[in-house]
């Protein structure tokens, strides 16, 4: 069965889910924080201080909406490399993010061993991620399987791009999760590109959610620039999973507002006109407008918030930049667990 956004109460223009005003503001704060950190990363990259950046811009609503439907410290998340906004909500600090960007010894994700944006933290139940795409989808299914064996009621959430749904691991993992009705939420953040490869060269279906029919699990396409829609759809999927009714595939339609990464130049394959169009779907702008419209965030309050966040990101950047690099001797640490 393939549900679509129309099946669920979503659009902020509609009378969205009843979330307390402070919760809505908190959601916005995380979106703005993610955006601010991300933009700062690009500045640091252009300034020659950060060798590599891969961006979350355009995916913030999809991630913040979803993460707010999860229980921090209890539920597992396996975000992919665009998951900045999701890990912030799950508890990672801007300083920790910046420590990864600068590959510092104190980087909690990998101690500077992995590329930036490969977030992980056992304490926060953010599972360590690798670069080969799609492998984490199988891990998510396995975490759900273990939860079933242990009789626990945590759910597991994982994210990946639409290109990654072409990988065998996507298929094998969703199939397994459906067979055993595992408590998993599979979030595909569909930005219509895999580096330069457009969706139509990646699949012959209009929606990634159509793939859910192959597994007998619900597949839902959501406007991923609508944070409230994402929250509501994910909330229902989480309830379903916790009830033991099984997994859900959620396709969040998002926009990739940057090149694939700082190593990419998307002008070679993406018309600038398209990018201009996409910018009109900026989830941060959209949610800011919604909050103003509903008198949930006044102009002064927003200006104040932006200043606080910029200060926070300044501090995080400085702290991280001043932190020491890993000692060469540590190269040999942690090959095996004792």
């Amino acid at each position: 069965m393939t549900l679509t956004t129309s099946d669920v109460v979503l659009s902020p223009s509609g009378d969205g889910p009843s979330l307390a005003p402070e919760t809505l503001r908190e959601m916005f704060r995380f979106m703005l924080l993610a955006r601010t950190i991300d933009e700062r990363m690009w500045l640091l990259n252009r300034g020659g201080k950060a060798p590599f950046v891969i961006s979350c811009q355009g995916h913030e609503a999809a991630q913040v909406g979803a993460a707010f439907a999860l229980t921090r410290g209890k539920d597992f998340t396996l975000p992919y490399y665009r998951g900045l906004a999701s890990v912030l909500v799950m508890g990672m600090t801007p300083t920790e993010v910046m420590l990864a960007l600068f590959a510092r010894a104190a980087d909690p994700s990998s101690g500077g061993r992995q590329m930036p944006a490969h977030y992980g933290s056992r304490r926060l139940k953010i599972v360590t991620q690798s670069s080969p795409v799609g492998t984490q989808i199988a891990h998510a299914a396995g975490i759900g399987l273990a939860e079933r064996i242990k009789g626990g009621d945590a759910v597991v959430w994982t994210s990946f791009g639409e290109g990654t749904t072409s990988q065998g691991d996507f298929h094998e993992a969703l199939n397994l999760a459906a067979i055993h009705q595992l408590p998993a939420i599979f979030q595909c953040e569909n930005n219509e590109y895999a580096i330069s490869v457009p969706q139509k060269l990646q699949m012959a279906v209009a929606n990634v959610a159509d793939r859910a029919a192959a597994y007998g699990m619900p597949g839902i396409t959501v406007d991923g620039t609508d944070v409230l829609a994402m929250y509501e759809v994910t909330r229902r999927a989480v309830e379903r999973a916790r009830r033991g009714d099984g997994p859900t595939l959620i396709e969040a339609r998002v926009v990739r507002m940057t090149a694939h990464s700082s190593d990419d130049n998307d002008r070679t394959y993406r018309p600038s006109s398209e990018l201009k169009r996409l910018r009109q779907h900026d989830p941060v702008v959209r949610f800011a407008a919604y909050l103003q419209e509903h008198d949930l965030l006044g102009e002064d309050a927003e200006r104040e918030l932006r200043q606080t966040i910029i200060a926070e990101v300044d501090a995080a950047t400085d702290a991280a930049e001043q932190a020491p690099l890993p000692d060469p001797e540590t190269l040999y640490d942690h090959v095996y667990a004792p």
Partner: protein
Amino acid sequence: MPEINLLEAIRQGIDEMMADDARVFVFGEDVGIRGGVFRVTEGLHAKYPGRIIDAPLAESVIVGACIGAAMNDTLPIAEIQFADFIAPAFNQIVQEAARIHYRSNGDWTVPMVIRAPYGGGIHGALYHSQSIEAFFAHVPGLKVVAPATPYDAKGLLKSAVEDPNPVLFLEHKKTYRLIKGQVPDEDYRVPIGPADIKRPGEDLSVFAYGLMLHYALEAAQTLANEGVSVEVVDLRTLRPLDTRTILTSVRRTAKALIVHEDNLTGGFGGEIAALIAEHAFEHLDAPVTRLGGPDVPAMPFAKPLEDAFMPSPGKIAAAMRKLAAY
């Protein structure tokens, strides 16, 4: 002490670990009611409800799901039906299981076992006879064991389940029922790492594991009757490799022969030979010699071809003779 075969020893090891620790479970194709195609898990499905799980026919997610499960406080034992079919899981094993502890700077661990029945001489043809150790013994972060006796198999299986790292547990199919031995009733472990001198000797050292260990012992007996004293070292663990025992033995005998069933070129024997050549150079009285399967893609089905492929006690004895005479 009761005498059982290697397959029963592995089953006992799994059974006892599952009885002791509710976190242990088995995930693989046909491991449930069927008890596995080799019957290793026979009887366990009824005994441990919900913990002997038939997997879909998909090795990548068999391993990948066990990785996830291991990160959620369980102790998975993945069964690959035949080692030849581990190839679809190569990415999950090498890029994920083996690297997770390192890439997370020690934050996450993957305590899992991957059982894989390997090896030939059982009329399994190209795709049910392969040796796979060279691919995995090269990978830092993985442990690779290949027991040859029931005692070692049970003791190493238990150590593997308790090990906080991913352990590839290689079971030579031909030894399953062929090799019998005494196994104590009381609980014990065989540590991952140390090699074991199965037959002490003076004139030359032979290094082997799995079925080849038994063929080497047979050949050593033949040579003994010819007045040549051969030391036979059972490597048991391929990664981490017990270089100390290997080098100590060669420094004493001054001659080394390495035997494996896997294709010679690029096989794990090359690593052992290289270690000896570099670190026992001044003690060597003869070239470090390797005897391995021929460099053809795999072991054919037709009996004459399979026999031509398999290293045999006779071929090993001939290599020993040549080395002894050097």
